[in-house]
């Protein structure tokens, strides 16, 4: 039993660590589906993580903190939306700028918060019935409310994407903005909306990190997770359900790394810390090959500004 419980802890932690990646990956999938490439995920996550931490610390309410972090991420994304949609600027440059801004902002204002720890963090809430399923119950249904929220987000977003008018408009705008516009859809509104949504979810990933997974503040606490999320978008082939698989895969690497360090291992910690990034390389290589052979393509208008009156 003791042997089993190690694995249950590992997998439960996988879900937690995966949730940090799942939110921003879903968000970026929807922004990219609308044609907006936002490389500012890392920056938005940092802002979400920092604001979430500060609000949770001062209100002593982790849920308030989480909510504040979500909104902070959303507002940060509007910078990118304004530059790339309204001003039709270069999305790569704008996204990178947002990442650098997020880093600078949180480093500057975060100084006096470094190494502070939350006294009130998100606590697990057992779901009756489901949590008593052997193994599965302890792994998936003995988590905090935000993890449950992420399950709902995956399902709801999948449904919206493929079954509703909202999703149809979104897919059309990302594939052929001109055709969508000719059918009376406002390309600008769709793009603003989904870029904002992407920001909210990036903020959610960051805030979940500092209010539940690692309830303290460190400079650059997201440690490249925003970039991993962008890689996961390709791995997921712009599909929310596949994003879940990818996020948990990387969550697993994180959890494993953590567990190995905690149990004391002969592998140097520098090597362990490298794991997620080496994993990113491998995943990108594998998914690029799959994408190539299956003729799955990124949204056609990804990164291309839309200009209505063109001549």
């Amino acid at each position, binding site marked *: 039993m003791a042997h089993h419980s190690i694995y249950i802890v590992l997998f439960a932690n996988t879900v937690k660590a995966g949730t940090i990646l799942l939110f921003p990956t879903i968000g970026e999938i929807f922004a990219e589906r609308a044609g907006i490439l936002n490389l500012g995920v890392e920056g938005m996550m940092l802002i979400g993580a920092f604001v979430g931490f500060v609000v949770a610390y001062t209100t002593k309410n982790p849920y308030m903190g989480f909510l504040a972090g979500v909104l902070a991420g959303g507002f940060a994304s509007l910078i990118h939306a304004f530059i790339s949609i309204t001003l039709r600027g270069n999305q790569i440059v704008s996204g990178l700028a947002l990442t650098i801004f997020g880093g600078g902002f949180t480093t500057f204002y975060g100084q006096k918060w470094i190494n502070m720890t939350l006294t009130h963090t998100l606590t697990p809430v057992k779901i009756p019935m489901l949590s008593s399923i052997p193994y599965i119950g302890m792994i998936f249904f003995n988590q905090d409310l935000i993890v449950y929220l992420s399950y709902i987000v995956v399902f709801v977003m999948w449904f919206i994407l493929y*079954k*509703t*008018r*909202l999703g*149809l*408009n979104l*897919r*059309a705008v990302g*594939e*052929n903005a*001109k*055709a*969508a*516009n*000719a*059918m*009376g*859809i*406002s390309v600008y509104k769709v793009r603003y909306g989904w870029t904002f949504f992407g920001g909210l979810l990036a903020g959610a990933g960051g805030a979940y990190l500092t209010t539940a997974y690692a309830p303290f503040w460190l400079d650059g606490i997201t440690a490249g997770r925003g970039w991993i999320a962008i890689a996961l978008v390709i791995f997921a082939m712009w599909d929310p359900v596949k994003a879940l698989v990818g996020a948990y895969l990387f969550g697993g690497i994180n959890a494993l790394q953590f567990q190995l360090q905690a149990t004391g291992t002969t592998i140097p910690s520098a090597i362990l810390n490298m794991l997620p990034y080496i994993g990113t390389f491998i995943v990108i290589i594998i998914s690029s090959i799959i994408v190539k052979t299956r*003729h799955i*393509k990124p949204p*056609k208008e990804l990164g291309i500004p839309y200009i*209505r*009156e063109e*001549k």
Partner: protein
Amino acid sequence: MDEVILETRNITKVFPETIANKDISFKLRKGEIHALLGENGAGKTTLMNILYGIYLPTSGDILIKGKKVIIKNPLDAIRLGIGMIHQHFMLVDTLTVLENIILGLKEYGFVIDKKAVKKRLKEIENLYSLKVEPDVKVWQTAVGEQQKIEIIKVLFRGADILILDEPTAVLTPQETQSLFKILRKMKEDGKSIIFITHKLEEVMQIADTITVLRKGRLIKTLPKSETTKSQLAELMVGKTQTLDFSRKRPKSNEEILKIENLTVHSDKSLKSLKGVSLSVFKGEILGIAGISGNGQKELVQTVVGLKKAVQGKVVFNGIDITNKPPRYIAQAGINYIPADRLAMGVAPNLSTIDNAIMRRYYRFPLSKRGIMNYRKALAYTMMMAKAYKIKLDNPFAPIKLLSGGNMQKLILAREILENPKLLIASYPTRGLDIASTQFFRQKLIDIANKGKTIILVSEDLDEVLSLSDRIAVMYEGRIVGILNAKEADKNRLGLMMAGVKT
């Protein structure tokens, strides 16, 4: 029939460099098919884009059923009952036919009610005999099918004013006739149709009223019953010109190009050429007809070395050139005018000079030990412009600023000045106005009369018929027949292009 449903008053549209429409006032009556006739660049599409809310007019008014309206975007147009079928279809390839049809519509619920959509589709099918497969992806459908989807889209939005922009450009003659049948049925149902075209034949067949535009101005509106093709042609072009397409070249049995059992894969790794064999004789013009996408592009690109053959052989002048690099093939004497000017013919952001010397920049005297001599390059470009009547204001400016006709002339000059033994011209006159088209056709005849061999790929059957000695028809990656030009006619070619055995 007398009720005016749509009217424009003094519509003017000014773009930064040009005036696309000037003081255009015209009336569309209920239940009529109104042809808008004019050359490329006459301002037809601009005017229609104004009606559909894609452009805003610089000045002037639009009236619908006598009421002044402002159409700011396509949504306004749709609400006013205007539907437009664009020349380049406005379809999202990766979505299904059904999804494309209801895109932007709110009637079918937040969660899309596919059953209701299919029911409505059935109604339309019964009414207009317009049948489509709702659940396939648009990229899997043929061009004729895509036009049906566009028409259904417009009907779904309850439009009673239909604008069709050059709808027959991509259709076979048979598909055109079935489109006309649908349009006549719509007319009977009281819908009003604006039909944009530059094809006189079609105007005489389908239109009730004809409005001719030239250089952005409305020249005349007249009922079909009171006009003739030659009058319309004159109104359209301004002046008429006769052409000498007579052949002054002897027949030859010398095989200059021999293609044997050529098989090529397309970009989607589907077989796009399925064992094509073809002989081209010295001094002839061989026309290749077919709806675009039936393997013409792959055939030509494989011959000039831009695509790899997986099987088969290409022999030119006794040399095996199969899968040789493009420059090797060019130096062997094959030159090529690509189908898509801006994508393959020129580098749009480079200057006219850079584009003019692309075939020879690495040779003396344009370069010496790797150093370019731009003075010589400029002189060469100016010589080219003069000989081929290319209107060139500034040879240093990016070539994309030239008009389509001038750009195409430059490409032609560049290729011909290499003195090729075989010239392959893909859609050389596509999108050109009448004057440039005539210049081009005359040039092709001239060089053929000088003993050069030409392969002419075109979907314009009039062009293929009037220029070629022999015509090969392609369908689904195969050559389905080769006719002598004398025994070919449009109808027969059309059937072969549609895959019907004759």
